[in-house]
């Protein structure tokens, strides 16, 4: 059953390459980025139970790292990838140490991440190196060396690569020792510590991993749209979307964010083709989130895969 699901997902992922439509490729790319970001959120929020409301902080940091390195210092945008991952990971690690040492959990952690994202947005809006409110424009010059592609399918391939990386990381969590420790801390921190689990370190590491992957998503965004400004880089909506994708698909499962991204984009694109009014699709996500919390806490993954516990 699970195996069949993965084959179906892989086939679905390859289909857009067969099409010459840039529209289809673009749609596929956006879905893959959503899934990758959702998976990144899932590593902290699902496996670790670290409900973040401000994950966009890492996305924005990655985006700005990439944009600043190439426009201000003339580095190749490929350098943006390791730089963003390091920055996202480092900030995630420090944010984790600071908040978890202070004993923040649950709702307090969610709110503090939101405050971090907001602080970063205001900072990006007011300092010189980020271009302030007018943002940073990356010069259009498509070439592989410049990490810009005329064909959207190449952009889609990059998004798929990130998704594969994030899913590989989630898979490792699901089977390995670090992931087991992370889930143990989520379920019962005191009991985990009594068995030698360094809870603060495990949670901080999960946030660092999640932050690094999220920051890579920011790089892909900049390389696709060649523009970043504070409201886009640090939008609350993107934080919420990452959470929604993971929660709707099934938080704490490997396949969840992939299914969630498909569901969210199916809702969005169907709604947009029926009603032009902005706001209708996100409103539906909110309703779906409420329904999932109320009636299907395991998310869609519960339908598709065999429940872990018979």
């Amino acid at each position, binding site marked *: 059953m699970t195996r069949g699901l993965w084959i179906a997902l892989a086939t679905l992922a390859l289909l857009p390459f067969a099409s010459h439509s840039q529209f289809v490729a673009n749609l596929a790319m956006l879905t893959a980025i959503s899934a990758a970001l959702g998976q990144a959120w899932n590593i902290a929020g699902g496996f670790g139970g670290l409900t973040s409301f401000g994950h966009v902080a890492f996305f924005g940091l990655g985006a700005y790292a990439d944009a600043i390195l190439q426009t201000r210092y003339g580095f190749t945008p490929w350098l943006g990838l390791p730089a963003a991952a390091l920055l996202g990971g480092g900030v995630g690690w420090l944010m984790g140490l600071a908040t978890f040492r202070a004993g923040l959990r649950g709702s307090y952690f969610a709110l503090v991440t939101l405050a971090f994202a907001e602080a970063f947005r205001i900072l990006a809006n007011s300092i010189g190196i980020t271009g302030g409110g007018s943002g940073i424009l990356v010069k259009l010059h498509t070439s592989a060396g410049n990490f810009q592609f005329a064909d959207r399918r190449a952009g889609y391939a990059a998004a798929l690569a990130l998704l594969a990386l994030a899913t590989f990381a989630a898979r490792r969590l699901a089977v390995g020792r670090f992931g087991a420790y992370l*889930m143990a801390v989520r379920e019962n921190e*005191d009991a985990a510590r009594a068995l030698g689990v360094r809870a603060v370190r495990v949670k901080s590491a999960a946030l660092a991993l999640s932050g690094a992957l999220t920051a890579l998503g920011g790089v892909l965004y900049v390389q696709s749209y060649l523009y970043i400004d504070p409201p886009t880089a640090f939008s609350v909506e993107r934080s919420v979307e990452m959470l929604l994708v993971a929660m709707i698909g099934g938080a704490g499962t490997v396949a969840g964010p992939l299914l969630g991204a498909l569901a969210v984009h199916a809702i969005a694109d169907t709604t947009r083709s029926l009603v032009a009014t902005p706001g209708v699709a996100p409103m539906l996500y909110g309703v779906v989130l409420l329904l999932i919390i109320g009636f299907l806490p395991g998310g869609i993954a519960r339908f598709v895969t065999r429940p872990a516990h018979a």
Partner: protein
Amino acid sequence: MLEVRGLSRRFGGVRAVRGIDLDVPAGAIVALIGPNGAGKTTSFAAIAGFVRPDSGSVRLDGTDIIGWPPERIALAGMVRTFQITQPFAGLTVAENIRIGAFLRESHRNAATRLARELGTELGLGAWLDRPAAALTVAGRKRLELARALAARPRLLLLDEVMAGLTPTEVNETVALVRGVRGRGATILLTEHVMQAVTALADRVYVMAEGAMIAQGTPREIAVDQRVVEAYLGKGAAARIADG
């Protein structure tokens, strides 16, 4: 192996633990008994790093471990169970035990194998792949024990693992704890089930109202007038002597 001196802890105006001394020699089984509210659980929590004592020292193999976080104490080889069981409710029973196994066994297949073997040995075989939340009270007690054992502690702290078990289950657990000692672990336990204390302990410490009021072999404790009168009440001495 474990040396506790002058351990004290107050909560607000209540002196929960008043300067207790306690020794657990390597290879021994030591019991800490006393009525509810005597301060046993607080003492345990302070020894295992979950509560910071106001004063006193706790030495593990000669090293003072006061102020160490619980995880560091566990890594040093002292592992505790909880009186109020603390399962990882969303994980399966096997996964629960595996968390303990990972302490000494970083390879996941080996840890899984160890966890399943231990679980089966403790009578949780039929439950291994079910969520821990589905266990009965007795099942949860066994899971506490299995998880702690999987961590291969040199010093095992058992906080009332027999409470809520049937007499048969108590006998099984007594045999099991003996087996653990047979494998070289040292054990400190708190217990209300006197039958288990008498059967297991080499040495018994008695607490009442936060203070240590007596110590000795189970037989000595059973006839100790202070214990009988100040704490156990009439008839209790006979119960202990009967085993």
